C-alpha cells in the first residue's frame, strides 16, 4: 500500500480543491433554491470567468487576487442582465424551457471561447504559484490554501447576505413562495436576476482562486457542474458535498490513475441522483 504521507497529502489536496468545488456548488444551489432550475450554463460561465482571469493576467498584467473584486462585480452584472433580458423572457416561465435556454447559453459560451482561444490548455504564471507551507510532513500549496480559506469567507459572506439583509430576506421569500412575495411588494423578476448575478459572482471568485494553480481550456467547466451537483439543495450541503467530491476525486485519481480517475465522481453523481434526487443533503422529494 501507499505510505500514509502520500494518502494524507492526497486528502489535503482533495479538501483544498473541494473548497473551490463547494464555492461553485454554492452558486448553483442558490440559483436552484430560488428559481428551482438547474442552471446548465453554470459550468460554461465558470470557464468564461477563468478565461477572464487569464486575459486580465496575460494581457493587462493584473494579478488574479487583485482582479477578484472587479471580476466578481462584472460577473454579477452579466448574470443579472442575462437572467433579466435573455433567460426570463425567452423561457415563458416554463421549467423545461429554462433548461433548454441555459443549455443554449452554455453551447454559445463554450464554443465562442473555443473559437476565440482554440482548444489549447492555458495557465497563468504567478510568482507564488509553487510556494508551499510545511505542515508536519506535508507540503501544502499556498495558493490552494488561499483558495480553501477564500471559499469559506465567500460562503460566510453569502450566508450573512441571505440572513441579515433586506435583499437576502426578499431572496428567501421568493424561494419559499413567489406569489406571496410578489403580493407584499417584492419584485420577483428583479430578485431572480439578483440571484443569478450572485451565482455568477461566486464563479468569478472561484475562477480567481483557481487560476494560480489550475489550467483552463474551453471544455473544463462542464465537468465542474456535474461534479458539484451531488451537494445541491442547501448551503451546508453544498459545502460538505463540495469537500467530499474533492476528496473522492483526489483519491480516485491516486488509486485509478489520471484517465480513469474522473469516473469516480461521475459514478457517485449517478448514485446520488438515483438514490436522493435532491442532493445528498437536500430535502426528500
Amino acid at each position, binding site marked *: 500500500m501507499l505510505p500514509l504521507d502520500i494518502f494524507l497529502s492526497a486528502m489535503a489536496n482533495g479538501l483544498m480543491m473541494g473548497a473551490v468545488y463547494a464555492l461553485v456548488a454554492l452558486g448553483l444551489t442558490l440559483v436552484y433554491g430560488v428559481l428551482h432550475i*438547474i442552471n446548465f450554463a453554470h459550468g460554461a460561465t465558470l470557464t468564461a470567468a477563468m478565461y477572464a482571469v487569464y486575459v486580465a493576467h496575460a494581457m493587462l498584467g493584473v494579478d488574479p487576487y487583485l482582479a477578484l473584486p472587479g471580476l466578481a462585480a462584472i460577473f454579477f452584472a452579466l448574470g443579472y442582465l442575462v437572467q433579466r433580458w435573455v433567460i426570463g423572457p425567452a423561457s415563458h416561465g416554463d421549467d423545461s424551457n429554462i*433548461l*433548454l435556454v441555459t443549455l443554449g447559453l452554455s*453551447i454559445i459560451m463554450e464554443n465562442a*471561447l473555443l*473559437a476565440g482561444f482554440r482548444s489549447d490548455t492555458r495557465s497563468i504564471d504567478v510568482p507564488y504559484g509553487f510556494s508551499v507551507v510545511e505542515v508536519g510532513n506535508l507540503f501544502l500549496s499556498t495558493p490552494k490554501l488561499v483558495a480553501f480559506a477564500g471559499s469559506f469567507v465567500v460562503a460566510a459572506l453569502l450566508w450573512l447576505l441571505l440572513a441579515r439583509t433586506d435583499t437576502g430576506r426578499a431572496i428567501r421569500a421568493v424561494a419559499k413562495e413567489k406569489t406571496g412575495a410578489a403580493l407584499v411588494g417584492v419584485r420577483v423578476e428583479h430578485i431572480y436576476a439578483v440571484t443569478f448575478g450572485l451565482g455568477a459572482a461566486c464563479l468569478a471568485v472561484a475562477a480567481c482562486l483557481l487560476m494560480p494553480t489550475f489550467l483552463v481550456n474551453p471544455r473544463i467547466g462542464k465537468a465542474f457542474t456535474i461534479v458539484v451537483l451531488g451537494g445541491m439543495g442547501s448551503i451546508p450541503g453544498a459545502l460538505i458535498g463540495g469537500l467530499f467530491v474533492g476528496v473522492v476525486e483526489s483519491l480516485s485519481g491516486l488509486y485509478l490513475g489520471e484517465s*480513469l480517475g474522473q469516473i469516480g465522481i461521475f459514478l457517485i453523481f449517478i448514485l446520488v441522483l438515483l438514490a436522493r434526487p435532491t442532493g445528498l443533503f437536500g430535502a426528500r422529494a
Partner: protein
Amino acid sequence: MRSSYLPIALAVAILAVLPLGTSSNTTLNFLSFALIVALAAQGWNILGGYGGQFSFGHAAFFGTGAYGMALLQVRFGINPWLALPLATLLGAAVGAAIGALSFRARLRGSYFALVTLAFAEVFRILANAWGFTGGAAGVLVPLRIEAANMQFADRATFYWLVLACVAAGLVLTQAMARARFGAWLVAVRENEEAARALGVDSLAVKLRAITLSSGITALAGGLYAQKFLYLDAGIAYGSWISVEALLAPIIGGLGTVFGPLVGALVLLGLGEATKIALGHALGGAVPGVDLVVFGVLLILCVAFAPRGLLGLGADVRRLLRRPV
C-alpha cells in the same frame, strides 16, 4: 388514413433523387452525415418530443451503436450486415437499463437530463481508457470495399442505405404516433399524474419509449461507424451528438414526424454555411463557430417558435389563409 404516409413517401422520394443531381463527394458525404444525425434525432424525438423526457446524453446510445458496429467486426469478425442490427439491439439494451434505473428513481426534468449526461460521460471515460475499445487511439474498421462488407465504391449507395433507415424511422414514428402507445406517451408528457389516474402505466410507457429511442439512435451510431470506418471515445460518446440529436427536433418541431429530419437538414446546412462563410472571411477554419450558431438558434426557437420551424410554417400558412 393511409394518406398520412403520403408525405413520408414524397419526402423520401425527393431525398432519394438528390444524389443523381450531384457527383460531388463532399456533397454526398455531407448529405449522408446529415441523414445520420437526422436518424439519431428521430430516436431522441420519440423520448424527448413525444414523451417529454429531455435526454442530454443520447451520445450514450449513439456511441454504443457505433462501438458495437466497429468492435463486432474488428474483434469478433462478424459481418457488418449482421453487426448493424446487433449494435442496434445493444444500444436499445443500454437504453432500457438506463431507463429502468432513472425512471424507477422517478427522475424527470433537469434530473433526468443530468443523469443521462453523466451516463454518457461515464461511457466516454471508459471507452477512452479500456484496451478492448482501442483506448484513446480509437478503433479502425479495415477498408474492404465490397457490398457483402457494407462498404461501397459509390458514395451514393451508402447514402441510400442511410436514407432507407431514415425512411423506416419516419414510418415507425408515424405508426407510433397513431397507435395507442403514442397516445399514452403524449399523455405522460402532458400530465403524468393524470395519465396514471386514467390507468396508463407510465413507467412501462417511458421504458418502452427509451428502449425504442435508444435503439434508433444506436442504429445511427452504427451507420456512422460504417460510414467513416474510424471511432474514438470523443466522437462516439462526445457531447456533440447529444446536442445535435436534441437540437434537430427542437428546431424542426418537437414531437412531430418530420421535425428531426427538417431540423437536422436546416441545422447542419446552416452550420456548414457558417463555417464556409467565416472560413473565407477569416482565412481559415474557426472551430466551434457552427455550434455558436446552433446555440443561438436553440434560444431563438424556445423564445419565438416553441413548435419549431414546422409549427412556424403552419402558423404562417394560417395567417395567409385568413381573409383580411
